[in-house]
């Protein structure tokens, strides 16, 4: 009987150990993408914002395109080079093809394998893909698409493909300074005057960076590093405070607008 009891206790202890290991890794719940109706009169800025959200969420684009040297080409600067990728093909057409029929043209040095964005499991509809194109054009270039733009693939995606889903993001009424405080930006950046801490001062960041660069510096902090600052710190910090999980598109826009307005007291 004692043997049986000892074996029982041993079984419980070993199982508890593995249960404990399971509690020590990062804990994250992944939700299905939520449905959202996209208006036909979205402004370019709104399209970029929604495009960024899709690229970082439902589109799962950053899993492969997120870092230089990754599985697929980095999206940094794609807006600047898209027009010259295939001779005679416009920027919008090229970006549309790369989303609807991604394996038709493969960038040198990479292998095919990207799924079609308008088909399951990603299932973006035409409107969402236009927003993604706006975001991509904004990476080093200037967006030219609107919600009325048509291209060779328009109408290919079913209207209800995925139901116009984008990653969930709660709305909030925080203003710029409150967002900066919420996500602990002040731990590393000064805002009330010049002078560097762990990161450069944000006091006059509006003079140094436009809105596109600010979006990029938040979404992919290591894409362009200010000289003299270590890479990885801001990304780790934002990951640590759950910025990428919590920030809504509205907050993102408010934050970028606020930072763009920081012109050193002018």
């Amino acid at each position, binding site marked *: 009987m004692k043997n049986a009891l000892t074996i029982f206790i041993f*079984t419980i202890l070993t199982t508890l150990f593995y*249960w404990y290991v399971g509690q020590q890794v*990062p804990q994250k719940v992944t939700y*299905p993408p939520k449905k959202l109706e996209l208006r036909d009169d979205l402004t370019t800025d709104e399209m970029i914002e929604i495009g960024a959200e899709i690229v970082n969420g439902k589109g799962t684009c950053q*899993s492969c395109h997120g870092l230089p040297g990754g599985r697929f080409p980095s999206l940094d600067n794609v807006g600047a080079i898209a027009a010259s990728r295939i001779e005679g093909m416009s920027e919008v057409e090229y970006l549309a093809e790369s989303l609807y029929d991604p394996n038709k043209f493969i960038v040198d040095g990479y292998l095919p394998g990207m*799924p079609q964005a308008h088909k399951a499991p990603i299932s973006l509809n035409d409107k969402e893909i236009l927003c993604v194109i706006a975001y991509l054009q904004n990476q080093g270039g200037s967006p030219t698409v609107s919600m009325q733009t048509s291209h060779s693939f328009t109408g290919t995606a079913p209207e209800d493909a995925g139901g116009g889903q984008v990653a969930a993001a709660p709305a909030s009424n925080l203003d710029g300074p409150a967002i900066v405080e919420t996500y602990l930006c002040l731990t590393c950046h000064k805002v009330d005057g010049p002078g560097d801490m762990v990161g450069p001062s944000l006091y006059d960041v509006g003079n140094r960076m436009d809105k596109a660069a600010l979006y990029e510096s938040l979404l992919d902090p290591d894409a362009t590093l200010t000289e003299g600052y270590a890479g990885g710190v801001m990304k780790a910090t934002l990951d640590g405070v759950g910025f990428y999980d919590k920030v809504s598109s509205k907050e993102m826009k408010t934050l970028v607008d606020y930072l763009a307005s920081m012109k050193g007291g002018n």
Partner: protein
Amino acid sequence: MKKKLPFYLIATVVVVLMLIALNHLWTNWDAARELSNALAEKDAAGAPMDDGGTLEYREFPVIGSRVLVWMIAELHLMFAAFVLAVPMFAVIIEFIGYYTGDKRYDDLAYEFTKLLSTSFSFTATLGAMLTFALIILYPRLMGYLVNIFSWTFLPYVLLFFAEAGFLYSYYYGWGKFSPKVHLALGIGLNIVGTGIMFIANAWLTFMNSPAGVTETGALISTWDAINNFTWMPINIHRLIANVAFGGSIAAAYGAFKFLGAKTDEERAHYDWMGYIGNFIAIIAFLPLPFAGYWLGKEIYAYSQTLGIVMMGGTFSWLFIIQAVLIGNLFLGANYYLWVSMERIEGAERYRKAIKWLLASITICFIVWATPHSLVASIEEARKMGGAHHPILGVLGVMSAKNTAVNVLILTTYLSFLLYRRGNKEATHPRASLLKNIQFGIFSVVTIFVIVLGVAGYFVDATTRIGFSVPQVLSVLFAMISIAAIDVFLFRNAKSKGEIKWGQIKARAQYALFFLAITFTWLMGLMGYVRAGLRQHYHVYGIMEDTSAHAFTPTLGFAAGVVSVTVLIFFALIAIVFWLSSLSTKKKWEPKDASDDVYGLAEEARS
């Protein structure tokens, strides 16, 4: 009293730990249930019905329908794996007995087979429970799968009947038929068992990598739906994993009987049984990572997105838990061999090698369990200069991990070689040359594996992934060629002493339990990732999960469900062990005349 104190102390600690774990699990469970309820309320307007007005989901109280199906499916799978695995090695052991004329092997095969009949009943009962649960709780999904796989159900049922026929005639016919006929029954049992598994695998792999259907899910070809991307890799992976798992449970049975043995003869028998069970488990375990690579490769080939969700996204941290489990399996298996060497006369000359083997395993374990990116506080990340540790980050990539697992396999193989030659002294005229060749193969392969691992840091991703193939092949080459040389080397070897079966420390038996529990937990975890990969899809890319349980829970929650399932499995397997032991128990005898309703005492006297 003094001796009992630590036992009660441990028991108290266990109870306290269980309460803490249950509290944590319940908190997690509550949070998950709250979330499910919130989502269910939100979707209440239309979600439960599809366009045709058919009910899509029903909810199971308290734990929810998803967790219920999850646990029943895992339990069914664990018992099914055991029932399919035991006949495989039972037939091989029986054949060894027949071929060598050694009756011990025949007895051992029978003892393994005794575990089957109750397990078979449990498997069938759990399978029926799973079917009912799915039909009741997920009617839309089941309706769709029935439509796709309707042609497979009849052969499945017929094979199941055949399995029952073969299994019971194999078990009850032990010693009643000629050995050849009996072996044929065993082979038949294995063939139908494998057929059943292949059919069931078609259903579940279709959910992960659907084929043979249009983009909207309409059926084009049932055969293509069966022969989808991950079907054959899962078939092979499960076939091997089942043997490893079954061997470990059979070894645990040997350990259980050893600890309760009353005589030296019993102890010797069950020590040997535990050793053989563990040997089977480890031999099957060694090629398992390679089958896993193939499965992973096919998942990527089917869908890059699915592959990335598995290895680089939501489930990437699950593989750190897996690394801990597999590292422990290697550690446990080696530890058992090292302790076992103490019962072999002459094996003490190899004892000094243990510390080096342990060092190798520890280093490889550490490398394998190193995550690619570290979760750190803001201050820690700032000090570290990013999420990747400047030194440890180098160990977190696939080049290092592939190298580590290959070296782990080689180290375990070396432990086994030392164990095997513990009491042997080669008398072959070219023994020295053969040993040098073995040493040369081992050294060259080890260096080759490490060099490819290091080279992986300096080449592009495609080349780096390609390096895993020569690494694996070279390790397989080393194992097969060294084993082949060993056969010649130790033919007619001089004995340096005997193996004293039964003279082994109790802690070796606990190592066997540890391996069985770890195998079972690992099976539960990998079952979760295979199904969880689909995230909010029932059938990936075809049929979305629109229920309240469509979200992917935390790994902590999953670990809780796996742990509870493992404990239920071991409670049920304890019943199997107990029932199997009844056959060797003494017959009941009446204590007095009032008990003697059949007149047994009188009959005995006459």
